[in-house]
């Protein structure tokens, strides 16, 4: 479907409001039409009789006629005043209703895009930068602000105006009306050429803006690294480069526009010029009254105005289409992982996990997991160890069903994940990551993120279990403390303990610990480890750890190498088998000794 027509479908819920708005505009057109006609009446029937061949002859008229003409003049003035007042009232109605509708459409479009984004899988995000997506949800949606309602209104109203005023022009003088249409073929050709030229420029401009957003988002998130490496100058030059690319395309658009619009205006100005020539001749030869010529000239601009306006609308549509295309591209992307119609909900999982001969590759890359099989009983602590890039995180991604395996099956509680509702699975998985992600809000809100109806007692209890309560109470606003973006006002260890409290409150059946203690000092590590012990109690836990001491008490350790499980067993068993795990342990021991 044409992008603009698709945008128009968003008007459907507001048809009533839009109809009233457009009706108000039609009334405004009528009122616009009335003004020159009233003026023509005044000029031809009241004022013109007082002059002959440019000389005033009113002195010869009886006082009664002059008084009657004053009254008529007053009447027409009042009538015009009424027209102006009605014009103001209907303009208000029209502007308010259509602008309001525009805002409502933007609101629903923005929410729809965001909702859709949330349901798209990780593959979608792997290919795109955060800044670029943000640009689509904010800047691209914003650029449609007036497009839908305003453009629809302007298209309808301008067409109506052209028809109404065109008819009036033909009614006033058929011959002059035909002359009015003379510049139109050239004018239309210019519009077609302009569209063809400017359309790709607008798409490029939207892409350049997205590039700027992406770089900005990246750099602001990494401002510490930039400062640390003193790369401000380098980043400024990168940013300037991106801005220059946008500037270049913007200047190209400006050049195209400024070349087109004045030329178009020149072409259309030929109309009034021709009317002055031909209409003036008709007045001189007595075939046309001055009032009619005046009215014709007034209507002429009211006729050309909408024609010119349609040209500008065309420019708006071309520009908006570039944004709309980028928005619809998101909305048209189907989530690669969806619940099947028969997917089952699970209120409370037991927590057994099984991989049956699982093979998986990201996109078209080489397999990251090959024939992986593992069987985990509810409540077991499982350690996943191995070199970087071995496939440990991929195992976690498959348990959370962020991806589906290419072959083989992943089961929880004996059910294939494809047969489970994603929400009921994921709501029972808790994660504590190396870099915990906290939201910009209060500590209270962050802890209660997974259980919005948590009581104060629940929140305090979770914080106590996570060894967070004491440091939280040390802040002047305690649990009501705003922690800033990504929890920037907290230390790494504090953030980690808040994230553990959040996981505790969520009460997951399956817990994933991804290097949860690797980036903190020894004392904090003890506090976190202690909190994690409490968190792990009674839950199936998968712990990824490079520091092997943290997983040595696991019920079973799986050693992953190049996408395959090369060893499994307890710490003691693996040491005794003298394989990769034993070598990794030796290397770490040597490092610690050094």
């Amino acid at each position, binding site marked *: 479907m044409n992008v603009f027509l698709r945008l128009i479908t968003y008007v459907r819920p507001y048809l009533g409001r839009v109809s009233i708005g457009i009706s108000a505009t039609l009334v405004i057109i009528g009122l616009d039409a009335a003004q020159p006609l009233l003026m023509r009446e005044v000029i031809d029937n009241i004022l013109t009789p007082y002059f002959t061949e440019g000389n005033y002859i009113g002195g010869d008229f009886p006082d009664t006629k002059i008084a009657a003409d004053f009254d008529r003049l007053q009447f027409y003035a009042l009538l015009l005043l009424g027209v102006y007042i009605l014009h103001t009232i209907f303009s208000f109605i029209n502007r308010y209703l259509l602008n309001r509708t525009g805002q409502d459409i933007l609101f629903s479009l923005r929410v729809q895009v965001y909702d859709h984004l949330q349901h798209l899988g990780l593959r979608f995000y792997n290919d795109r930068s955060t800044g670029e997506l943000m640009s689509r949800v904010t800047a691209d949606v914003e650029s449609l602000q007036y497009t839908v309602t305003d453009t629809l209104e302007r298209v309808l109203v301008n067409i109506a105006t052209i028809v109404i005023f065109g008819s009036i022009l033909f009614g006033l003088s058929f011959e002059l009306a035909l002359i009015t249409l003379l510049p139109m073929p050239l004018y239309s050709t210019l519009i077609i050429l302009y569209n063809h030229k400017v359309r790709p420029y607008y798409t490029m401009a939207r892409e350049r803006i997205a590039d700027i957003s992406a770089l900005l988002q990246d750099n602001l998130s990494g401002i510490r690294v930039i400062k640390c490496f003193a790369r401000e100058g380098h980043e400024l030059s990168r940013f300037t480069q991106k801005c220059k690319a946008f500037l270049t395309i913007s200047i190209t658009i400006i050049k195209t526009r400024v070349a087109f619009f004045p030329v178009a205006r020149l072409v259309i100005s030929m109309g009034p010029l021709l009317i002055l020539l031909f209409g003036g001749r008709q007045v001189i030869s007595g075939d046309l009254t001055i009032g009619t010529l005046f009215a014709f000239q007034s209507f002429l601009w009211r006729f050309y105005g909408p024609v010119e306006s349609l040209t500008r609308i065309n420019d708006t549509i071309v520009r908006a289409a570039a944004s709309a295309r980028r928005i619809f591209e998101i909305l048209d992307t189907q989530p690669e992982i969806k619940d099947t119609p028969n997917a089952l909900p699970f209120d409370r999982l037991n927590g057994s996990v099984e991989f049956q001969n699982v093979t998986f590759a990201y996109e078209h890359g080489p397999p990251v997991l090959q024939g992986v099989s593992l069987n985990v009983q509810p409540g077991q602590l499982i350690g996943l160890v191995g070199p970087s890039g071995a496939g440990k995180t991929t195992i976690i991604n498959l348990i959370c069903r962020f991806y589906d395996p290419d072959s083989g099956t992943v089961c929880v509680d004996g059910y294939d994940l494809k047969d489970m509702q994603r929400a009921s699975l994921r709501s029972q998985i808790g994660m504590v990551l190396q870099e915990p992600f906290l939201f*910009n809000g209060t500590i*209270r809100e962050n802890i209660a993120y997974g259980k919005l109806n948590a009581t104060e*007692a*629940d929140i*305090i209890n979770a914080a106590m279990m996570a060894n967070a309560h004491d440091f939280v109470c040390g802040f002047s*606003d305690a649990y*009501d403390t705003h922690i800033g973006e990504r929890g920037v006002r907290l230390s790494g260890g504090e953030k980690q303990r808040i994230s553990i409290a959040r996981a505790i409150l969520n009460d997951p059946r399956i817990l994933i610990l991804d290097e949860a203690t690797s980036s903190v000092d020894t004392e904090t590590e003890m506090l976190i480890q202690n909190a994690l012990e409490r968190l792990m109690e009674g839950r199936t836990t998968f712990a990824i750890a490079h520091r092997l001491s943290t997983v040595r008490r696991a019920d079973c350790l799986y050693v992953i190498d190049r996408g395959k499980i090369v060893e499994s067993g307890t710490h003691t068993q693996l040491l005794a088998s003298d394989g990769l795990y034993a070598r990794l342990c030796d290397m770490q021991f040597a490092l610690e000794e050094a």
Partner: protein
Amino acid sequence: MDLMIQQLIPETIDIRQNGDGLLLFADGEELAIDHIVRCFPFSTPEQWISLRDRDGTELGLLSTLDGLNTQSRALVEEHLKNRYDIPQIQTILNIESNKEGGTNWDIDTNAGPMSFTLRGDQNLNLNAFPEIVFTDAITRKRYKILDYTKLDRASQKNARAYLPMSSRHYSGRRGGRSRR
């Protein structure tokens, strides 16, 4: 979820003045209270009060002050008042944007005219609306509007343009009535 939270039972404890500090008598023990903290000073200020010693260790947690004997309650309330008392904004005289992208507020409070600077939503707390707490971005000092709906119209109008309030903050609050 296991329970770690251990609350003091208000009816079974006694709090007494001890020089500049306070003493807690609970379970036959006598403990020196150094400071008393509200766990949720904005969202539920009257509940979850933490009694702490000099090292910041929690001596006990009161889910409510109800049930405390009169003298103990008065001592806790006075301590909390001293710790949390912040100037109450009565009129917002003027708000201006500053060059740093924040806003400067001139206000009249129960302690006289004052001014503060905000640099974003992090300096604002609307959790207990219609109560609003502002934190000066520079001095970290706090100021409070006890009930936004009871401010004069000019102050409300001044503030409305700068506060991130949504319809939930307005609904049912006209006429100066509060839902709290």
